[in-house]
């Protein structure tokens, strides 16, 4: 039995949440229930339909590339990728072949850095629905999704475990949401994961001579489990002295297994060539600068800053905001809180534990700060004055005192409440209870 190291590269597809389609004016709405309603001659692939590129989608792809530390191709183009499938309206997908918008980036994980090979832009396909109509088994096509802008993020084979793959994809989703360019709703297909997995014998330097593509995974957990299964499957084959077949495999969540789908096409089979309908794209300095202006500070930097300035732990920061817009809103709030000598991390604690609810962008900062103060500030009270008030309350509630003495100890909460009413200040509840106890004993 030999030892093997998993070598994993990932391809992740993410739908962009632009208002309209990648190459047409149709509404981009992943929630649309009525089939084939957000369609036009272009995304239906009707004769004569011509694509016109969505500028916003291009800008967002470049923005993502910048956030991942990529270099940007100032000259880029779209290519046609040919294959046959009933949900592919034109018989080809408009994608990017040899000149993606972004290349050579990097993403940090706790296991080490992962190099980003490229980030490119393409169009999504329609969706096949298999069902029964009038007792007949049919396959239907819904073209609503056809032409949705889709970015593909490809990594180098720098991932060495299922846990790292999971961390990488989660972090990628965090960045995309932070940039506010995609919902990454896994269940609706807003983010789709693919892993290229092979095993390398321990001590070997060269990449294995095969790879297995695990495709269309729609949850982080399934990704982790699918990779685990694949590592075991491949190990068994290698242990027998055989080489796993180069192929595309799917993941069956119910059985927790992977299964063979098809053998992998090579680039030549796709007959890529530049789409003559779409003029090449030149990104001049002005355009590039405009895009760069929309690039927020890196999310990792924000986590570090908040930790340093406000002692907010990264795990908590991750829970309270997703988008940069939300982050900026909190930034302002934290600044105000700090300026008033209050503790921002305490506020974050209350928010996370749902003790203080806030409406982002809607609530006035002052109102939030007031609420926060009420919840946390403990008023100073003179000991003598407190004892006097307690005595007064005990006299006025003689029956309760007797109840307490006869063993109904829970009545003390009622008495403490009465004291709180009288002092009209926020005093530590436990002190009041302690003092009431003392007074009753003395009676």
């Amino acid at each position: 039995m030999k030892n093997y190291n998993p070598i994993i590269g990932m391809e992740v597809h993410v739908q962009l949440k632009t208002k309209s389609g990648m190459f047409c004016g149709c509404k981009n709405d992943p929630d649309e229930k009525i089939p084939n309603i957000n369609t036009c001659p272009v995304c239906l692939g009707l004769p004569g339909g011509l694509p016109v590129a969505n500028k916003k989608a291009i800008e967002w792809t470049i923005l993502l590339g910048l956030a991942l530390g990529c270099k940007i191709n100032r000259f880029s183009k779209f290519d046609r990728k040919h294959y046959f499938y009933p949900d592919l309206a034109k018989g080809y997908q408009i994608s990017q072949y040899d000149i993606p918008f972004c290349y050579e980036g990097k993403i940090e994980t706790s296991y080490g850095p992962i190099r980003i090979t490229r980030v490119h832009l393409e169009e999504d396909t329609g969706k096949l629905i298999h069902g029964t109509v009038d007792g007949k088994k049919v396959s239907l096509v819904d073209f609503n999704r056809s032409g949705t802008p889709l970015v593909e993020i490809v990594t180098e084979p720098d991932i060495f475990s299922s846990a790292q793959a999971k961390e990488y994809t989660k972090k990628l989703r965090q960045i995309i949401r932070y940039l506010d360019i995609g919902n990454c709703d896994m269940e609706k297909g807003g983010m789709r994961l693919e892993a290229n997995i092979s095993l390398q014998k321990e001590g070997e330097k060269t990449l294995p001579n095969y790879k297995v593509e695990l495709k269309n995974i729609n949850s982080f957990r399934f990704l982790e489990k699918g990779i685990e299964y694949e590592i075991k499957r491949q190990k068994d084959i290698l242990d027998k002295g055989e080489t796993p077949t180069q192929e595309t495999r799917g993941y069956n969540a119910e059985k927790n297994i992977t299964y063979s789908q098809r053998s992998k096409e090579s680039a030549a089979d796709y007959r890529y060539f530049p789409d003559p309908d779409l003029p090449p794209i030149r990104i001049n300095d002005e355009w590039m600068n405009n895009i760069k202006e929309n690039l927020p500070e890196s999310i990792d930097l924000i986590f570090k800053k908040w930790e340093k300035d406000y002692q907010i732990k990264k795990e908590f920061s991750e829970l309270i905001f997703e988008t940069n817009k939300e982050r900026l809103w909190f930034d302002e709030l934290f600044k105000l809180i700090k300026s008033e000598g209050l503790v921002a991390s305490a506020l974050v604690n209350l928010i996370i534990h749902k003790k203080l609810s806030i409406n982002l962008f809607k609530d006035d900062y002052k109102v939030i700060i007031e609420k926060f103060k009420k919840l946390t500030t403990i008023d100073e009270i003179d000991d003598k004055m407190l004892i006097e008030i307690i005595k007064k309350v005990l006299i006025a509630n003689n029956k309760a005192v007797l109840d307490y003495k006869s063993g109904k100890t829970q009545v003390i909460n009622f008495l403490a409440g009465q004291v709180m009413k009288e002092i009209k200040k926020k005093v530590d509840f436990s002190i009041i209870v302690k003092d009431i106890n003392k007074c009753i004993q003395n009676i």
Partner: protein
Amino acid sequence: MKTNELTLKKAINLLEKKEISIDEVYNDTFAAIEAKNKELNIYLSIEKQALKKAKKQEDKPLRGLPIAVKDNFLTQDLPTTASSRVLDGFIPSYESTVTKKLSEAGGVTVGKTNMDAWAHGSSTETSDYGPTKNPRNPKYLPGGSSGGSAAAVAADLTIVAIGTETAGSIRQPASWCGVVGLKPTYGRVSRYGIVAMGSSLDSPGPLTKTVEDSAIMLNFMAGKDDLDGTTSQLPVLDYTKNLKKGVDGLKIGVCYIDHPQIKNKEVAESTKKAIKTFQSLGARVDMIPTSHNLEKDKVLSHEYAISVYTVVQRAEVASNLSRYDGIRYGADRNDFGKEAKNRILLGIFGLSNIIKKDELVYEHAQKVRSLYIDNFKQLFRDYDLLISPTSPSYALALGATSNDPMFGELQDMLVEPSSLAGICGISVPMAKDEKTNLYLGLNIMGDYWQEEKILQAAWAYEQVNKII
């Protein structure tokens, strides 16, 4: 004179002055269609509501006049087949930009004209609905692929027509049918809503009885279209405004007539006559030698253009036809004709085979294509216009295409270099054979966006060379 025989300009004038009525125009046109369409096989479908539609258009510039539309323009009410059984009975859900613009200008689509299936050809003989015959002499081909539109104009089955050219598909049938055919610069006229053929080459344009009619039509067809990213932002001129400016002082270069493949003596002779005509109109005319290398002041031989065009256009065809996958349009993929199948296979070959290290056949062809672009750019630094015969011969007899897979390329060889470069050109009748009643055309080419200049030259030539 019947009103269907009028030019567009004349018909507009007479309608404006109320000397004729739009009813008369349609009565005459439909009578002519009734009399000749069966024999000539020009229209695949007829708009029966044309007159009714025209009556609502009378106050617009084109006055409701009939336009014959090649069957690859999508028309909302009329079947659109591109002359292929694969699209048999297909009625589009939307209208092409060009027909929409023409309708907004007062034009009415009177019918859809026959063409080579998918515009693959130069004869209109490869239509799945049978060949169109040349109205000048029905034993002969009309040329193609816009043969139906050229024939409709020549036979007066319409006032004007529109077609599309990928390489010669407007100019060559215009030449063979003795009408005017204008291929605008690639990107001057929108391709939206036209069944795509060679997407980097397709240029819609008019086929008309006179040069002036082409200028009027281009006024309404040209312009930026938000639905076609390859259309130009450049402003559209009023091409009729300076139409009569003449060619005095212009420098004109003559291409290709020294080539041995032009076997028909009359072609070279009538081109020489055209040279004299231009000289008499005040232009300076030089012969430009043909070269097999890219050389200054020489025109790059059209022979490579045939190879380049064959590779590039077939690749785009193979890609563009992949949407007709047998699932959505009713017809099976077996309904593709022989020519389409040939082109798909050749296209796939060019996109999946390597000619030399890491270079696809297709990529190599695109590199050679750029040589033609460089060649024309250089020549247009010295010349205002370039002229050549449109076609190396008169119309060929029906049946000439059978067993000749390169038929179209050979007929179009003199216009293919200009199509590959994307520049504009116009074919205007040059000579007529009194025995056969067939025509030759003169191809006047201009630099990018110089439609005004080629129309001016064609108009000046047409006034002197009255052969129709």
